[in-house]
């Protein structure tokens, strides 16, 4: 009996965001937008979903006069990602 994959992570863009954030300490919004090749609006919505679930932290500040959004993964997010990968392994090794 396979465990169900976390629906919050089982989406192309959210999985891509989490994979990027798992590899770094923190990343700026523009970095995530470039690497995931997404639109600012769509990325913003998905970041909010991940943040509401407690998977990521979003910090808003300023870089000079420009607003700066920085994201980093939380402990809960790390756990969810690890669980997702472990479940994925089950599917691949079946």
């Amino acid at each position, binding site marked *: 009996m396979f465990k169900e*994959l976390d629906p919050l992570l*089982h*989406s192309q863009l959210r*999985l*891509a965001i989490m*994979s990027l954030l798992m*590899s770094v*300490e923190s990343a700026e919004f523009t*970095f995530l937008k470039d690497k995931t090749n997404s639109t600012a609006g769509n990325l913003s919505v998905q970041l909010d979903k991940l943040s509401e679930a407690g998977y990521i932290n979003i910090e808003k500040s300023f870089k000079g006069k420009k607003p700066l959004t920085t994201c980093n993964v939380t402990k809960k997010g790390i756990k969810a990602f690890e669980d997702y990968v472990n479940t*994925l392994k089950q599917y691949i090794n079946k």
Partner: protein
Amino acid sequence: MKTESENLTAQQSLDIITAMIREAKGKAQKNAFYFLFWGWIIVAANLGMFTLTQLGYRHPYIVWLITIPAWIISLYRGYRHGKEERISTHFGTVSMWLWICFGICIFTLVGFGHKLNYQLNPLIMTISTIPTFLSGVLLRFRPLMFGGAAFWVFGIVGFLTPAEWQPLIGASAILCAYIVPGYLLKNRKDQ
């Protein structure tokens, strides 16, 4: 990139994860600047000190003052890059603190150099093993690990060598530990 993909297969999910982790990998080549910049500065200082010693100049260590503008350039460049960088990585943080600790130790040794009769070259070469070797480990770049080991060997050779020849040992160590790995790193293709 699509938002909702309930039909993602396990393989597609795995491909996304792999591709994104690869995207987040920093370019190791940018670190080559510091090894080459400091490599040539220290080679020049060592050779300058050796030449002035041979010419009988009373204060040959004066050439080491060229490291002051080098520190300023390094710090300015590091600050500029830090501001431009859009991600913060564990490697970057560990690497930065490793070299800052090393820099503080060097300043301390130079500050108390009179207690050691200014025979600092072998000592500095020996402790240079630590940040150089560990940078090689962090970058997964073997030539830099060999460079760290070379510092250790040249440190021992330095302790066994008369003071007036030590700048030549120092220059040779830097050539093996910073300059050769630095050029190899600069020309390394992304894996």
